[in-house]
């Protein structure tokens, strides 16, 4: 057998990429690392001012759904998780009730990401958030976390 046939380079070619009929998602968004940095500063400002709900709204606004950059998503997730864990259990219900249904859907996505990547002090408070998010958005909101291709 010749040496050439021992090459395994061809195995690394993603043949599905060459399929003309490959399913393509909606167009990709641009790079949002700048907007995430400015969001982080904004959220920090609200938190230091004691305005937890304003911080939550800022953290949930316009999440980086389209980007393929996992680092940007992770950074945004860390910002949201930081806000969620700062709430006292007794304040959660009021905060969720003030959100509109789109914001609850985004919140639910972050709650499930929080369950998927648990840290030491996040799970307890996330369960409280989950309880009130379900009370507000219903099971429909959970179904949308499962079906959406636009992950947070």
């Amino acid at each position, binding site marked *: 057998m010749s040496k050439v046939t021992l090459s395994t380079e061809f195995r690394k070619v993603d043949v599905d990429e060459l399929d003309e009929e490959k*399913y393509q998602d909606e167009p990709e968004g641009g790079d949002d690392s700048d907007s995430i940095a400015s969001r982080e500063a904004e959220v920090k400002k609200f938190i230091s001012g004691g305005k937890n709900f304003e911080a939550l709204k800022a953290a949930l606004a316009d999440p980086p759904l389209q980007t393929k950059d996992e680092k940007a998503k992770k950074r945004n997730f860390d910002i949201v998780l930081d806000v969620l864990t700062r709430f006292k259990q007794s304040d959660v219900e009021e905060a969720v009730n003030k959100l509109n249904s789109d914001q609850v859907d985004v919140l639910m996505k972050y709650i499930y990401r929080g369950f998927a990547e648990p840290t030491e002090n996040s799970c307890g408070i996330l369960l409280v958030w989950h309880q009130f998010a379900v009370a507000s958005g*219903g*099971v429909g*909101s959970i*179904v*949308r976390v499962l*079906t959406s*291709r*636009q992950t947070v």
Partner: protein
Amino acid sequence: MSGGGKEVHELLTEPITCHCWNGDRTKFAISPNNNEVHIYTKSGGKWELEHKLMEHTSRVTGMDWAPKGGSLVTCAADRNAYVWKYDGKAWSPVLVILRINRAATIVKWSPLENKFAVGSGARIISVCYFDEQNDWWVSKHIKKPIRSTVTSLDWHPNNYLIAASCSDFKARVFSGYVKEIEEKPSETVWGKKMPFGNVMAEFSNGGGGWVHDVSFSPSGDKLAWVGHDSSISVVNMAAGADCVATVRHTYLPYISCQFLTESSIVAAGFDCYPVLWSHDDNNQLTFVNRLDQAEKKASGQLSAMEKFKGMDKRATTTGSSDTTLDSTHQNAITQISIFAKDGTGASKFCTTGVDGRLVIWNCKSLESAIAGLKF
């Protein structure tokens, strides 16, 4: 069993994949989740199994009964469709070559019954018509721009346009004008030029989640569709293509939707009960009510043993043997069809589901039973 505006028939223990009624509603056909088509007829006030049609070799996925002509068309996962004719004694099938390489998913007669459309997993809609000269059914394909399985179809009342729901998250309206057999169509709100296969409109519900079902309103000006992201959408084309109302609701996703009148839509799915939505002239889509009101269960005394057993096993304090739902259907509803019409729209509709039950709902009785309900 009947009462409370509904008539319940417990036909099977296995799921009913699909159902259809004949024109005068004296017979219906169902598939018991396999390759058979069962035809029921009413005798002595009871529905009796009359015929079993065994021509398909895989699971039957769709069927439709032409109300006037009386022909039954069925399609299945074996990639074939049959047109069945009844001679008074037996049903005889005629094979239709669909030219698809994946399972057929849905079949619908056009309103004039001169053609039918078959959706499939091959990302194709086959529009089939009868060629008199050659004495067979010919199929024409609508391919572009479908990117995934066609889940459901609905014909526009003008006999030319077809709406298709698709698992590529889109609902589309195509032209199904076959110039070989019919006159040139006149203009509708969906557009003027209708060469075969032309995309007249394309809609997305925005959030992802494949579209389960589409339905035209009685006039054909409105289109409703339901998605797996727990959403329901309606477009009023008379007001423009960007006049889309979408509601992301708080319930489990709907599998099926059906316009009853110009403003009311009945939808049902994984929640196991049908619900009513209304769409008004200001493009407001609102939830009206659950049509199958929860029935109060007679709660007997529980022994302490049963109570703790239930809490341990199923995290509830109701009896351990009580697993029935508070709805008429005991599992997901997969199909809604119109059973009877009156002057303004549908007056009765029929649902079947995974629990093997067939239920006929009477709109008038529901209106009087549920406060504030108006179809």
